[in-house]
Structures are given as C-alpha cells and as structure tokens.
C-alpha cells in the first residue's frame, strides 16, 4: 500500500520540481568573448587622476575601488583577463589625501562642502603620502601631464607619483616606470592635465609673477613627442590597447556652476558687468554680465570663485590674503604679510576699493576664464586630440573619444530612469570637485571604453550595470 502511495507522491514532487525550476524564462544573450586580436590577460592602466579614481578633490579608497580601470578590469575578467592590482590605501588610511564631502545646503540651496581630515594617508613630512611599493597595474598618477613623463625629478614634484616610486629608483621617470611593467593590454588616458591645470587655475599661473610650469599649456611638439614615446613603449611587444581623448574642459561643472549665480546677483543689483585681471599679468579687462556662460564671446567662472562671488562690490582683500597664505614659502605671519604686500604691488591692487567694480580691486584672473584663455584651451584641446587620434590610428588602437562623448551629453541624457547631465551634484556624473566623475560617472566611462574595445577588437565584453555605482551622497 505504502509503495502505491509513495510512487505518485514522488511523481507529483518531481512534476512540481520540474515545474518550478523550469519555470524561469530565459533570454539568450551572446556569450562574452575577447574576439581574436586582443589579449586581455594582463591589463595595465596609464593615466592621470581620472585613471587613479580621484574624485571629490581627493584620492581615497572608495574612489580607487571605483576607478574606471578597476571596473574595466572586472569586465575584462569575463573574457580572459587576470587580476588587477591597484595601489590601494589601507582601511586605516582609507581617506587617502583627504577629500570633500557634502554637508548640506544653504538657505538659498547652494551646496556646502567640508574637507574630510581623518584616516588620512598623509603621514610623512611635507605632505607626502604613505608609500605603496608593491607591483601595480593601475599606474594612474593624479596631476601628471604628458609633458611630465620623461622628467627624472617628477617624484619630488608630485606626492602621488612619489608614493608609488620604488625607493631604489627615486629618479625613475613615468615613462620608465611604464616600460618596466609587463602587460598584454593597456588603457592610456593621458593629456587632460596638459590643458586642464591651466584651465582650472584660470590661466593665471601661465607667465607673469606667479608662473608655474605645471599650470601652463604644454607645447604641442612636446606633447606629440612624449605621447609617441609612451605609445611606443606600451606597444613595444605588439600589445593592443585603448587611448582616450581629452574632453572639452570648459564644459565641466567646475566652470559652469558659479557663473549663473554670479550673473543673477549682478542682474538683481543692476550691475552691468565687472572688471577683471586677465592672464598672468596685471592687465585689466571689462566683462559684461551677459558674457557669463554665454556660448559666444563667453567667460566662465571656476568653482573656486564660490567663496569670493558674494564679496563682489565690497572693499575686500580676502582673495589676496588667501593667495598669499597659499603661495608663501613659509607659514610665518610676517613672511605671509610680505608675500601679500608684494602681490598687491605686483598686481597694483587697492583693497579699499570695491571688489570687482573698480580698476583698483579687480576680479582675480585665477577666478575667471576669459575669452582669450578659453580660446587657448580650445586650440590646445583640439591640437592634442588630433595628435592622440592620429597616433592611435597609426598603431591600430581603440579610441575612447571622451571629447566627443562629453560634448554629446552636454544636454543630458536619461538611462534606467535616472537623469544624467554635466550639472553640479544634480547631474550625477561629476563629483564634488566639479571636474572628476562620481563612481557612477566612472562606470559610465568604463562602459564607453568597453564599447570602443568591443568595436575595435570584435570582442563581446559586457558593460556594467551603472546603477550599482554611487553618485554624490546626500547628508
């Protein structure tokens, strides 16, 4: 009797099991493949802050973990890629260089940020970062320019590079460092800083009293020669790779956020325009309110101006005192005072006059990209991108046309029910520094690179679900 009951019972259970397990619908998708020409087994990433995962005005563990090379490497692992090692900060020093976080909004809705100062990796004298000397595949160095890659003194100029430079070879150039690394595939997104550092400093450190080589636009022939040297190194054994172009730096939120607020304030107070310093010297120019963020003959105001914009039309020397503290060789109050006096003399500043409204107390050059500077930036970006494209095409490399991509998304786009645009904070793409992406922005960039690699090498590497990566966190 029992057997009779047992058998239908088993049958019923089997039937139910098959039913429930076999119930799930499936969508056929092409299996991931590497294609035939590229070998993704050992991938290295060459580049600057964008490659390192820099965001929110700092390099810290969360950004490193969400760097586009890390995301790309994870996807390459689906088509034969191996492990990918980054010079990660430790958990104990996870805040790395320190960074900005959003702490709230003013009554007017202006975002308020504050620096994170705990759990830093800034543990050595002179602001040096805790060393990481193990082998690495993410060679991204914040601030590095194409112009810097052959410099033997670069590790003394850049703490991010010093951090990963072997103690036994302190004078190793970046080019030599890359040459010493084995790889079968590479990404190279370099060149942004050859124009970006000029742009973010308002062109004020190019020539003149405060001249800084790092904040000058790289000469085109230097760029061409160095870029070729790096690509020759990277493709020495016939390796394939992908290179990125330079996005139009003037369209990032760093340059587009403060302008409209300033313009509104000028318009509200019936002020037709302001007087500003231009370039690295003491020349004054007149700027009409209508020029701010205008597509033709426009000027742009960097995010660094947000602290000074409310002081317009007041007799203030705050900007110059801050600058003196920043550029002074010593923190000593007397030395700072001396620096301030020489700055005021050099630029012929009278801080008792109305800030921005008088020739005696003009809007500082560092807080403005004027028409001439914007035109320098555009010309350099175009020249560098022509070089990048030509050299990549000569070598049969994939190209992530970042310039084209960021131009195409200026008006914003929507994906998976989320709106994206280059707007500060609300655009979800850019972190609190207004220049570097959020982790989600990096994921979107990684996906664009994957699409370029797929198309160049006939591969089928799946893109990532970008919603799994965060944007700006709200308090």
């Amino acid at each position: 009797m029992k057997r009779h009951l047992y058998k239908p019972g088993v049958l019923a259970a089997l039937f139910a099991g098959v039913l429930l397990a076999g119930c799930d619908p499936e969508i056929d998708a092409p299996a991931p493949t590497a294609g035939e020409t590229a070998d993704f087994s050992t991938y290295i990433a060459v580049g600057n802050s964008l490659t390192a995962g820099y965001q929110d005005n700092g390099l810290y563990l969360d950004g490193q973990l969400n760097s586009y090379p890390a995301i790309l490497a994870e996807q390459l692992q689906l088509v034969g890629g191996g492990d990918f090692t980054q010079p990660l900060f430790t958990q104990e020093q996870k805040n790395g260089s320190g960074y900005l976080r959003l702490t709230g909004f003013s009554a007017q809705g202006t975002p308020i940020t504050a620096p994170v100062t705990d759990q830093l990796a800034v543990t050595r004298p002179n602001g040096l970062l805790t060393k990481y000397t193990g082998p690495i595949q993410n060679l991204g160095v914040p601030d590095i320019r194409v112009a810097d890659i052959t410099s033997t003194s670069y590790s003394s100029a850049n703490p991010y590079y010093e951090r990963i430079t072997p103690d036994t070879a302190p004078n190793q150039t970046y080019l030599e460092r890359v040459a010493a690394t084995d790889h079968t595939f590479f990404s190279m997104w370099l060149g942004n800083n050859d124009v970006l550092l000029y742009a973010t400093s308002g062109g004020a450190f190019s020539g003149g009293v405060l001249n800084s080589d790092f904040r000058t636009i790289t000469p085109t022939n230097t760029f061409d020669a160095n870029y070729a040297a790096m690509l020759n190194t990277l493709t020495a054994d016939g390796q394939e790779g992908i290179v990125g172009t330079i996005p139009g730096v003037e369209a990032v939120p760093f340059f587009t956020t403060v302008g409209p607020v300033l313009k509104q304030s000028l318009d509200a107070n019936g002020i037709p325009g302001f007087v500003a310093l231009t370039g690295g010297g003491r020349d004054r120019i007149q700027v009409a309110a209508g020029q701010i963020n205008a597509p033709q003959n426009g000027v742009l105001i960097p995010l660094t101006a947000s602290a000074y914009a409310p002081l317009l039309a007041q007799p203030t020397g705050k900007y110059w005192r801050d600058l003196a503290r920043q550029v002074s060789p010593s923190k000593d109050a007397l030395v700072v005072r001396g620096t301030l006096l020489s700055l005021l003399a050099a630029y012929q500043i009278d801080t008792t006059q109305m800030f921005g409204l008088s020739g005696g107390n003009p809007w500082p050059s560092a807080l403005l990209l004027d028409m001439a500077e914007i035109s320098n930036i555009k010309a350099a970006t175009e020249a560098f991108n022509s070089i990048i494209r030509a050299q990549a095409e000569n070598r049969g490399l994939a190209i992530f046309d970042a310039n084209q991509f960021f131009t195409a998304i200026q008006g914003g786009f929507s994906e998976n029910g989320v709106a994206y645009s280059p707007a500060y904070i609300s655009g979800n793409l850019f972190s609190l520094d207004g220049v570097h992406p959020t982790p989600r922005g990096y994921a979107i960039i990684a996906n664009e690179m994957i699409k370029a690699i797929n198309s160049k090498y006939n591969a089928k590497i799946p893109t990532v679900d970008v919603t799994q990566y965060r944007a700006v966190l709200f308090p």
Partner: protein
Amino acid sequence: MKNKIIALLGGTLLSASAMAGGFQVNLASQRQIGMGHTGTGIYTGTSSIFFNPGAMSYLRENGVTVGVSGIVSKIAYRAPEPGGAEALTDSPVGTPFQLYAVYGINDKLKAGLGVYTPFGSSVVWGDAWSGRFGLNELSLTAVFIQPTLSYQLTDKLGVGVGFVYSVGGVNLQRSIPVQNQQGEYGKAELDGNASGLGFNAGVFFQPTEKFSVGLSYRSRVDMKVEGGDATFTVAPSISGRFPEGTQFDAELPLPSTLSLGIGYMPTEALTLAVDISRVGWSAYESLRFDYSKTVNGADFTENARNYEDAYIYRVGAEYRVSEGLALRAGAYLDKTPVQDGYLTPETPDADSRGLSVGVGYAVTDNISLDASFLYINKKERTDTGAASGGIAGTYKSVAYIPGLAVNFTF
C-alpha cells in the same frame, strides 16, 4: 464596511499577475480556462454571468460556483546589448478568484451575482535591479461585483445585462535616485484604494441544437484613486523636496471588451468553441499621478502609455468521456496593446500564447469539480521604453496557472 473588507482582500489575497494583454487577467471560470477561455458563444453554466449574460437565462438549475487560480509567473529582464545586467521577478503567487450564483426567478428570468477579478497585476522586481528607479514593485487589483439579470426572449434568443461595481487598489513602489550617507537610495510608495462603475451585457442565439452564437460587451471601468498616500523616504537634507503627508489622485481605465463567440456541437459529447475579442485598450493613454503637495518640484508625474486596441483569438473544446467526466483543451493568441517604444516594467507586455487543459468531474448529482491548467508564454520583446519612461531592455514572461472550482446545483 463591506467595501473595506473587499478592498483589503483585494490588497492582500487577490493580487494577480497581469498575464494577459496589458493588465487584463482572463481567468474567469475553471471550465472555460480549460477550453482556452472561450465562452461567449456557448452555455458555460453560472460563469455566463461573465462570458455572456444573455446565455444565463438558459440555465435549468440554480447554481453556485466558487473557483480560484494560482498564477506562478516569472519575468526575465536583460539590459540592452552589450549590457550585462539581468533580473528576474520574484512576484507573489497571484490568486484571482471567481464566485458566481444564479437563481431562477421563473423559467425565463434569471438573477445572478458574479464576483471576479478581470484585471490585476502583481510584479516584484526588487530593489537591486537596474530598473528600480522605474519600478520596484506594483500591485494592482480590481474586483468586479456584478449583479445580473437575464431573460430568455424566445427558445432561441436570450439577453442579459449586469451592473458592475469595481473595487480595488494600487500600490506602486520605486527607488528615488538620490543616495544618503550610507549609499541607500530613496524610496517612493504610492498606495490607494480605487473604485469604478460599469456594466456587462450579452445576447445569446441558438438557431439549431448544434450551433450557437453569442455577443457580449463589458464596458470600460474607470478606476479612480482619490486621496491615496504618497510616502517618500529620502536623505534628510533633501526631505523638504519630498513632503510628508502628500496625497495623490490617479485614474486607471480598465478597458472595454467586445466578444463574439461561436459554439458548435457536432455530437452530444463534443463542444467546440471559438471566440474573438476586441479589447478597448486605447482608453489607456497615460499614467498620471496628481500630488496634493509639490514633490521634487512638480505637482504631478505623467508617463505616456498610448495603448492600442487589441484582439484576442481563442479556440477550445470539451469532450464528455462519460456522464460524469469531461476533458478540455484550448489555445489562444492574445495580441499586445503595447506599442513599440512604450514597454514598461509594470507590464512588459508582448503577444502571448496560451495553452490549456482541463477536466470536469461530477462527484454527485449536485456537486461537480473543474480543474484547469494554463501555460502562458509571451514573446521575448526588446524595447527602448523611451516613449513611456520605461526601462530599456529585453523582457520575457511565462506563467503557469493551475486552478480549481466547485459547482453546486440545486
């Protein structure tokens, strides 16, 4: 009080996955499910209240039918190429039900009451899938309560009409793409009760013993939600943009259905049926929520739906093996009302194919059982969802729907 209880039931027990075109649930009778859900052109017993009130007048005995189905449904999602994201719904088992009672006032005039669930949707995508800013989960319920009168004009012609009062509710949850310090996304939940009015009418004509034909019409019912609760959970620094105590109004049209059915009985043991239905989905133009307070800068949200009228083609057969045992089978093709560009994760609809089998068994002279099993397979469909604020990708749905009913006659 009663309304509340029914609405409560609607919200908990009766949710049914939308496994027909749009969010229609064609599971109105266990016998008819077995026959491919045909029934407009034949006698179907007490369920003629639903299929064709005109045929109800032909019932010889008083009867009560209680039945329920269990919908086990799954929807798979895959992001557009070369996207690697996948998702699979984890929807609860839907349990649409039917309750019909028919009482003969005299030989020609019959009164009946039907309570059934012709529309509904319950889909749970969860809060980890890539489309969660479009939808986490949706529960949509509608219970039709239909008192009906049917009159036999001649031996060959019957007419019937029913008044429909519909109650139900909607609960929609989606993630808000703004994260707090822990990286958690905000959440919006819209929850409200709805009600609406409509009617059901039918004509049944049987010129010969072997042949019958029917025409039925179920009107559109506008389900109105008034003063539903909109609850938002977001990071404190932006909570001012998502005010507490926000209420919403919404209106969802449940479309009309016009059906023509033909029955043919070549022998006494065999019944063949064919139905064609036209569903007036074009009534569903947009999904709009009006808020009582300004939510993130807007006092309403609206997404286009622009459904198109759609046809359903059905065939079914019943064979009486003996006096007490009947075997059934059927099939149908349910064309989607959703145009290209308008696919949404609420109802990632596509042309659906249904295959069914059923069995009827008389336990005693007064009690009989009907069991059915329906398999629904929707075509795999890839869409951008761009016109409806949907989530781009490829969707594929299947459902397994067993059901059981008990009939009493007296």
